[in-house]
C-alpha cells in the first residue's frame, strides 16, 4: 500500500458534515484535539452539532470556536470552566450542556465502541449525577448504570499514522482519542506524519488501523 492509503484532504472531509450530527472530539484542554478539522467544521458552516469530549478548551484553542460561532446545540463534557462562553450559553439556556464525570465519560464512550450496554460505576452516587439514572446495589455497593455514547463522526488527533491508519499518539495528547476511534460511524484522524505500512513499531501502535476510516495530514491554520 502506498502512503496515500487512507489519506484525504480537509476539503474531502467536508461532505461528511451534516447539520444536527453528533461528533466525538479527542483532547484534554485542546491537547489531542485536531485543530485543523475543528477549523474545517467552522469554515463549512455546519450547525446544530452535538459535541462529545472532555472539555470545551479555553479561548483560542479546542472546540470553543464552534461554541462561540453558535454552531453547537448540545455539549456533553466533564469540564467547561476554562471556556466562559460555554458556561454563559448554558446559563442563558441557549445551549444544552450535560456534565459527566470524566471517568464516566471515558467509560461511556468505551462502551459505545465495545458492544456493551452500559457500565456500573460508583462515581456520582449521592450527587446530582444520579438523577434520572437506574441504580443497582450489588454486594452491598451502590452503582449508577451509565449508558453508552456513540457519534456519527469521531475527530481524532494522533502523532503518526501508517498508510493502514494505525495510530501512535504523543504523550498526554492521547487521552480520549483511542476510545473515540471505536465509537463512531466514521473516524478521521489528523496526524503529524503518515508513513508506509510496516514502518511503525507494531508494539507501539495504540489504535489499530481498521478503526480509522481516513487520515488527514495536519496543516497550520
Amino acid at each position, binding site marked *: 500500500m502506498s502512503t496515500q492509503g487512507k489519506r484525504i484532504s480537509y476539503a474531502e472531509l467536508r461532505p461528511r458534515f451534516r447539520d444536527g450530527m453528533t461528533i466525538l472530539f479527542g483532547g484534554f484542554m485542546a491537547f489531542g484535539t485536531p485543530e485543523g478539522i475543528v477549523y474545517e467544521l467552522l469554515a463549512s458552516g455546519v450547525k446544530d452539532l452535538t459535541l462529545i469530549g472532555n472539555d470545551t478548551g479555553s479561548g483560542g484553542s479546542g472546540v470553543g470556536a464552534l461554541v462561540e460561532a453558535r454552531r453547537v446545540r448540545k455539549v456533553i463534557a466533564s469540564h467547561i*470552566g476554562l471556556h466562559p462562553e460555554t458556561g454563559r450559553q448554558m446559563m442563558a439556556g441557549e445551549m444544552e450542556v450535560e456534565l459527566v464525570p470524566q*471517568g464516566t465519560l471515558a467509560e461511556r464512550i468505551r462502551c459505545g465502541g465495545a458492544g456493551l450496554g452500559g457500565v456500573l460505576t460508583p462515581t456520582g452516587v449521592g450527587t446530582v449525577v444520579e438523577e434520572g439514572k437506574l441504580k443497582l446495589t450489588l454486594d452491598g455497593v451502590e452503582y449508577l448504570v451509565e449508558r453508552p455514547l456513540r457519534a456519527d463522526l469521531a475527530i481524532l488527533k494522533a502523532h503518526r499514522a501508517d498508510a493502514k491508519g494505525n495510530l501512535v499518539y504523543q*504523550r498526554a495528547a492521547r487521552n480520549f482519542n483511542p476510545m473515540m476511534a471505536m465509537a463512531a460511524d466514521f473516524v478521521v484522524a489528523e496526524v503529524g506524519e503518515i508513513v508506509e505500512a510496516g514502518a511503525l513499531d507494531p508494539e507501539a501502535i495504540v489504535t489499530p488501523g481498521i478503526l480509522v476510516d481516513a487520515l488527514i495530514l495536519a496543516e497550520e491554520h
Partner: protein
Amino acid sequence: MDAKTLIARRCALELHDGDVVNLGIGLPTLIPNFLQPGVTITLQSENGFLGLAPLTGEPLPGLVNAGGKPCGMDPGISFFDSALSFALIRGGHVDATVLGGLQVDQDGNLANWMVPGKMVPGMGGAMDLVTGARRVIIAMEHCTRDGGAKLLKRCDLPLTAAGKVNTVVTELALFRFLDGVLTLMETAPGVTVEDIRARTEAAFVVSPECRPMPA
C-alpha cells in the same frame, strides 16, 4: 507562614514513601515541595500518565498537567488513555488524592465542584477521584473569605461524593473521620480548640491524642 504554605506542609506529611498520588489544581500542587527526606511519590495525572514532574527546560509537545499547563516527566513515566487513567483512579490504584474543598460536612460529604447560579465549571475528574482514591485528603482554608464556616453540619452545595472524605487539613487544624466521626487530631501553632469550635459549624470530637500540628 501563610495559610496555604502551612496547609501544604502539613498535607505533605500525609504522603508516604511509594504512594501513588493525584493532586488537584491550586494549593495541592505546592505539596511536593514539602515532602519529608526519603519520601518519594509517583504523581498520577488524570489526563493520562504516571510520573508527573515539575517543568524543567522547554515544554515538550503534548505534555501538560491536569490544568493544561506544561509539565515535566519523571524517568520511567508511562502514558495511557483516559479510560485506563480513570480505571486506575476508581480501581483503588491511587493511594491518595489531595483536593481543595468548598464545603465538608460532619458525614464526610464533600462539595467542591459547583456553586449553583454562579460557578458551574463541571466536575472534571473530581467525582471519580473522591470516589476511588484510597485516601481522600481535603486541603482548604478553614473559613470562607467572609468568615463563614466551611466545615458544616450538612453541605448545602451540590456534592462531589457522599461520605468519602478521610482527612481535612486547614490552617487551624487537622481532622480525621474515625469510624465515621469527625475527630480533631491536631491544632495549628497558637490555635486553641475553642478557636476551632468558634469557626466550625460541624459537630466534632476532640481526640484524646489531639496534639499540636507538627511544624
